[in-house]
């Protein structure tokens, strides 16, 4: 795959190589989920409630405690991943590396490890319209499709419609699955995730550039907002930097509060960091 990609799209091929290396060298697949089900891994005991499977009653413990207890197992191994890169306009920015490139890398990482562990994955690309990128499959071809589409997607003047996105995910993905939302999550006022969390397990990967949170003072610049198209002269100095820092921190804190309340795992990856390590560390901890 990479061989055919290398001459035509070198930067993308480099991203793929990098992710493949990290996938194959580290045991990224030892991930844990909160999903309980009919697996083999014992998690804990719980008191019998009406409706529980009678087969799972641990008779020994029940006899000891004079109350019926059932064993709870983890869900079986074959998982389904849903990868959703959120490619709004602000994604096309970065100081040394574009955020879009990092998102592509993360998508590649996730989908590769999925294929490696014989799990299925499907993917959507979300902008103002959410569209299905690859259907549910295990094939490596879909990895490439996803990565290519993410890498080359035009991002100018597109904002994300979270409501529509969640609705689609809720309807389309019938089976309980692991949802990965990859984006920069700047405009999160309409981010309301409670309903989705009842059905799926959700993980948010926030990709940011440090410049966005705390810009260096560059003096007067003629800026243009890529989403609205407005332009104005703006002075970037220490004062402005502090203001931006405060504003971003405020909105982030609101956003993270929302996430924790809904029980959503999240992680922030900066453009100057290695996404593979971060994701491994994320997947190995339970929320």
């Amino acid at each position, binding site marked *: 795959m990479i061989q055919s990609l290398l001459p035509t799209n070198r930067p993308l091929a480099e991203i793929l190589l990098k992710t493949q290396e990290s996938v194959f060298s580290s045991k990224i697949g030892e991930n844990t989920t909160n999903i309980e089900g009919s697996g083999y891994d014992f998690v804990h005991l719980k008191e019998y409630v009406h409706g529980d499977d009678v087969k799972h009653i641990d008779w020994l413990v029940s006899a000891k405690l004079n109350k019926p207890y059932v064993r709870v197992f983890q869900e079986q191994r074959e998982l389904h991943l849903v990868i959703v890169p959120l490619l709004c*306009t*602000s994604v*096309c*920015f*970065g*100081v*040394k*590396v*574009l955020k879009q490139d990092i998102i592509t890398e993360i998508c590649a990482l996730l989908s590769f490890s999925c294929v490696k562990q014989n799990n299925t994955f499907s993917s959507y690309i979300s902008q103002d319209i959410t569209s299905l990128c690859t259907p549910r499959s295990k094939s490596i071809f879909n990895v490439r499709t996803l990565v290519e589409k993410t890498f080359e997607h035009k991002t100018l003047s597109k904002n994300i419609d979270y409501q529509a996105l969640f609705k689609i995910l809720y309807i389309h993905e019938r089976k309980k699955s692991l949802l990965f939302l990859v984006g920069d999550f*700047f405009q999160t006022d309409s981010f309301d995730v409670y309903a989705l969390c009842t059905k799926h397990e959700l993980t948010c990967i926030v990709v940011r550039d440090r*410049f*966005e949170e705390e*810009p*260096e003072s*560059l*003096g*007067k*610049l*003629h*800026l*243009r*907002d*890529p*989403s*609205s198209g*407005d*332009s*104005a*002269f*703006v*002075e*970037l100095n220490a004062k*402005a930097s502090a*203001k*931006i820092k405060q*504003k971003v921190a405020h909105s982030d804190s609101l956003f993270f509060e929302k996430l924790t309340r809904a029980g959503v795992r999240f992680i922030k990856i900066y453009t100057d960091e290695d996404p593979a390590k971060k994701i491994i560390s994320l997947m190995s901890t339970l929320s």
Partner: protein
Amino acid sequence: MNDFQFEYPFVLLFIPLYFFITFVFKHKEQTYFIPNFLEILPSVKRKRDIKKTLKYLLIFLTLIALASPTQRYKTIDTNLHTLDIILSLDTSGSMSLVGLNPFDYNQTRLDVVKNVVKDFLQTRKKDKIGLVVFGDRSAVVSPLSSQAQALLNPLSKINTGVVGNSTALIDSIVQASKLLKHSSSSSKLIILLSDGDDTVSKVPLEIALKIAQKQNIKIYTIAIGESNNNLLALLSQQTGAKSFVATNTKDLKEIYSTITTLEAITHNKKKITHLRYFYKYPLLLSILILFFLIFLQTKSQELSIFSKNILKKITHYPELTKHLAEKKLLFFILFLFFTTLWQPTIYFQEDRVQKNVVPLVIALDISSSMAQQEFYPNRLNFGVKKTEELLKISQNLRTALLLFSREAFLASPLSEDTNSLSFVLSNLSLNFQNGSNLFSALEGAEYILHGNKAKNILLVSDGTSSQSFLQEAQYLKEKGLKLFVLNVSKESSQNTALQKLSLLSGGAFVQATYSNNDLQSLLQDIAKNFQERETYKKIENKKEPMQLFYYPLFLAILLLFFIFIREYDLKKVNFFLLFFSLFLLKEVPQVLNAGLLDFHNIKKAKESFLQENYQKSIKIYSSLKQTDRIRYNLANALYKAKKYNKAIEIYQSIKPQKNKIQAMIYYNCANAYIYLHKYKLAKRNYVLSLKLGNDTMAQDNLNALLLFLQKKHHPKVFTEDKYKLPKYMSASSKEPQDVISSNYTVQLTKLVTKEIDGWKKVINKEKPLIFLQKIKTKRSSQNADKDD
């Protein structure tokens, strides 16, 4: 001094051009796509773009520097221009009339002329002058020679009737043209002096004129007395010169001086002006500005925290982000500016060396012994051929030709014009004479070379019979003559004495062979001898240093334009501003549009002419720029409007290139004169028209006119129908752009070239007369009368 001016003022036009471009095209303003900041940060005032003003200033100042403001502080006239003049003198019988000089009635016309010419020769020392006389035929007295003194002797020998009593005026022009054929001067003149009309010339006027015109020869004509000078006037008019009439000595003197001043005026415009250049001052300023610009450019490199690829993606005009290349270019421009400041110049050390010319008299032996066919075809012809070769090879000889047997004849005085000399040489009519007098050659040479520092004689001879040349040796020593001998006989025994003589005098004795080696060694000997004795001064002419600063400055300007204009989107035109500026352009200089309407006006004038609304046509034509064609048409309209005087005036002011048109002008003039009842003038014009081109209409009119003049009554031919419209008028008024229909001209030119070719052959075949001047010899050598 008020001599401040720009050397190349048109360069300043680029300043408005640059302003125009910046005005009309959209400025590419770089914006950065950075999300989310605008919502948070308040917008501030646009920062003042110093760069823009600096760029304007930079372009402005550099263009001013390139336009090169100068101040003239010294002008030096250089009189480098020389004329090639052939004096053509009439020696026909009528020149022996007296009365030209009011103070001395014994002087004939020719005497007066000769005196004036002598004065003239003495004033023109830099020019090359040749002399041709004509009577029954024309004869070459001297080819072009830069030594005017050399002409004085043969001039004094010219008498009336030297070549017959009639006047072959036109032949003399052909002859003179032949002599001027190889002239390299930019102004070739023939000064033709005559007192009568042409009587016996073989060559038609048209052909002679064509030959002269082809060689760019100007024929100044001087008519003596109240003769029929129409022909002379025509000649000078056709070659762009002037014709004069001299009725007394004073006139004649004045005429000669005016001719030379006229030529001097038209040509001596070569003035070396010393200029002070001020381009450094604006350039220094622009260097300062450029420094500042580069400084600003480096300051704006703060955005380098972004990597290159990303900067391309987050900017509106990615092409403007190539800071580095631009900076390099700016540094290169700075370098160019400094090169300009360094003031590169080239000195052309063009030393105009006056040629070290060696005067040499070539004395050809024409004694009957030269008829021996020892060399092919005979000794004399072989000698002549050798001499021709010598002239061809030689580079710095000033040569005179002398023929001698018992007496010496001067064929050509000293002249550097080797082409003319060989022309003379090849056209000599050589008749063998008895006896060979060495003294005649020596004295002749002395006569020619009198006053020269170096005196060389080249004897092309087979030797003489005398065995001792004591007297001759003494003579040679006394006069400082050097004898070179080219022996054209194989009997070496005869010439030991001659050899001795030549060696004694410091010359050389060379045996002629069929190869060129003999000539080479001869030339070497002459040159060697010359170097030993003579030290001619070199005249160095230091030229003004040539400024080269334009080139780096021009390159710098180009680059600056290229860099600065990149900031403007040439695809996006600000149409409003464009129209506004075009409107301004149209309003302010009306002059710019004046030329455009001419086409329309000509058409209009033509239409009104065809509608017989002549007044309107005249009005329009006279409002236009007066070219020859417009004037011709204007004159036609005037003619039609019956304003004959004015029409004639305008007709005569036209100097067309083609003879055909000139003929038409004469014809129309003649018709106009008839309406004015000036029949003599009409007749002359008809004749002139007929001379330039055969035309039945003109012939008819002329015949009718002659008939009318004879009968003194109004003939029928003079009805209105005939003269209502001159023949060419209709054609010309139909097409004001081209007077003759193309079809006709092609045929005509073909015919003419054929005719002229034929004539050229005839002219080339004909051997011209060479004027031989007999030089009296006092002494005679031993055995001079005896023929060997």
